[in-house]
């Protein structure tokens, strides 16, 4: 017989309870399974608390204070650092456009190429495992290593890219001296690094699709394009939405490859949000201003991610 919890009637009077942060009795009364789950979660929660939550709160606290790296006075200055960042022409005219431009370009290109590769790998052909392993190689390379490699590949004196261009009779290019060529190199690096990630997830999505709609399309003699356009793509959209949202957030905070390839240069022409926060904190040594920039960036990306998720989710709903 199952015992139901006792229900209180509204007329019954109850003793007011004193709120407690941790109730040992209730912890001990938990069933063993719950305690086991809590024990499993505790190390991860502690790590998260120590290395994510506490630094974020410390940074947020610093953003309201006079806190230089070399002489942290820690006096309260209110919103002064936020106002400075929001009035900084470099932040508004260079950093934000660069960040969003990069995010849109890298996510679109990686999604496109990732989808192409996933479609290719979804077909059976000889040596597929070899192609699959080869395609996934960039995922195994640390972004900083990839960026150092790319910087030398695009070096105007020793780079293989210019050597190849010269072989084709094209004059060598100083890739990293101008804004848009530098931006292109950074973008190519990021797309190269992230396309396999899209390919892997989209391939898993493709392989989990039901076969019936495809069989029906084949019976109806639908062309490959129409099958892709009206069956594969709509059914794959939920996976694509998740990929796009996760990757957009990640692209917004890109630091390593930009720092290694261009350092945000020439001058500050390819500086992005994370670099801006880094430069303020560790080159201008103003930790407070860097923290304010980071908080502003966090607010921007949270709003952007929510909007993006909503828009894409509606798109998925409509397509259903």
């Amino acid at each position, binding site marked *: 017989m199952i015992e139901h919890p006792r229900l209180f009637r509204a007329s019954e009077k109850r003793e007011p309870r004193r709120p407690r942060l941790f109730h040992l009795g209730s912890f001990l009364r938990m069933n063993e399974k719950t305690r086991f789950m809590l*024990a499993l979660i505790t190390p991860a929660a502690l790590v998260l608390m120590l290395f994510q939550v506490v630094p974020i709160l410390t940074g947020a606290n610093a953003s309201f204070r006079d806190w230089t790296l070399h002489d942290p006075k820690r006096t309260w200055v209110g919103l002064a650092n936020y106002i400075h960042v929001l009035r900084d022409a470099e932040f508004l005219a260079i950093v934000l456009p660069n960040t969003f431009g990069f995010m849109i370009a890298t996510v679109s290109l990686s999604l496109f190429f990732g989808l192409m590769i996933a479609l290719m790998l979804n077909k059976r052909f000889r040596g597929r495992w070899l192609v699959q392993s080869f395609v996934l190689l960039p995922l195994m390379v640390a972004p900083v290593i990839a960026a150092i490699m790319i910087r030398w590949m695009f070096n105007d004196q020793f780079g293989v890219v210019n050597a190849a261009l010269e072989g084709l009779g094209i004059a060598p290019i*100083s890739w*990293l001296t101008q804004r848009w060529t530098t931006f292109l190199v950074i973008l190519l690096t990021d797309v190269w690094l992230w396309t396999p990630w899209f390919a892997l997830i989209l391939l898993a999505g493709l392989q989990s699709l039901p076969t019936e709609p495809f069989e029906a399309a084949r019976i109806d003699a639908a062309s490959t394009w129409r099958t892709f356009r009206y069956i594969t793509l709509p059914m794959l959209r939920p996976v694509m939405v998740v990929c796009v949202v996760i990757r957009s957030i990640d692209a917004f905070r890109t630091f390593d490859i930009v720092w290694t390839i261009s350092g945000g240069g020439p001058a500050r022409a390819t500086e992005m949000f994370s670099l801006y926060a880094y430069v303020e904190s560790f080159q201008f*040594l103003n930790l407070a201003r860097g923290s304010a920039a980071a908080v502003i960036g966090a607010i921007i990306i949270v709003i952007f991610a929510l909007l993006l998720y909503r828009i894409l989710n509606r798109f998925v709903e409509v397509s259903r």
Partner: protein
Amino acid sequence: MPELRSFIRLCAATAIGLALSTGPFSAQAQERELKVGYMKNPIQDASLDIMEKWAKTHGVKLTRVPMAYSVFMEKVTATLTSGTDQFDVIWHNDDWGQLWKKWLDTTDDVRGIENADQWPLLAFWNDDKKLTVVPMAHTVGTFFYRADLVRPEEVPTTFAQLVSVSQRLQKEGKVKWGYVGGMGMNNTWFSLWWTMWANNCDILKPLFERNNDKLVAAKFEPAVTEPCHREIVEFWWDAINTHKISPPGMTTYGRNEANAIFMAGEAAFTLVDSTHFGEFNDPKRSKIVGKIGMAPFPVGPRAQKPTSWNEIWGWAIPKGAPAERKQLAKEMLSAMMSDEAGQIEMWKKTGGPPPNVKLWPKLAAEDKDFAALKHAVFDQTPITHSAYYFAEWPAVHKAYSDMAIAALSGKREDIPKVLAEHVDKIHRAATGN
């Protein structure tokens, strides 16, 4: 539930293991140890080798903690201000001499410090007029040339000659480029700044002033729109785009990229710290071993005689280190300053001039390379120091670098406009606004 009990046992075993490995039972905890935070560089390693000799004979374990140059100052500043005892000795540099002055122990009582050159110590005095550094080696900008291509009497002494000799060598097919040097952020000395000082110019007004009170009185007014400064930006624009004596990508080069071109034998001239002399003569890395000469800086149209810069790399002791380790560190640094044979060996192995200047005449008499360096640098009178010594200097450097690279990446006729646009940014960087 057996899983829970096993899990708890595992956690307890791990905790006990960790406690044993780091606690009083650890054998390592009994050993005397000094941790040194430094940049991986042949000179710093050679200086550490001198200290290692002392450490071995005194039962001290010397632990080297290398860090990348690009993050060194930021990382160590954060460590110093947090008050942790992560390092007992750290690499110190004049660029951030004033930045760390209140976080470092004084070093006036280190034996042998009286044999150091006084000029480069300006950056390292704290507010109580006490020293916070022990010199490791002098870092002097040195004009290197290919002695196999250029005879000593042909070595350029002016900017104009630098262009003409470079073009001649390029035309003769002897080199691909005339001059190559670092120019990107943190490498500004090796192109823009040496020419700036060699053209009687500077970054802030009053020119060549390094007294912070006087700079404050002058409200940190930038001198970058002065004709003497505009001329050097135009000089580099022409060197890259008009005369083509320097690679088009030079605005992005760090010292490693510039050195790679010079060591590949593709450039006739470079200017970099003398501390790279050893690298240039390393047969594993360089194609120009034994073919390198040193000469005084060529001068610009506004200067009459060559200038130079003469600063030091040093070691410092964080205040946050425990007292007994600070004392131990001072003993080790005293041993380094007193080890004449070790310092001479460091010069021979790496090209790092010894911190004990009393060794210099003897070294110049017996070593032709040191004699050449002495003539090229130490015998010339520095017009000023190669950095400013106020806390916001790194920010000024960054703002200056952004300005110069923006000017060199645009059209020549826009240079005055770009320089004018950045005056306020440099001023704000200097005043912390």
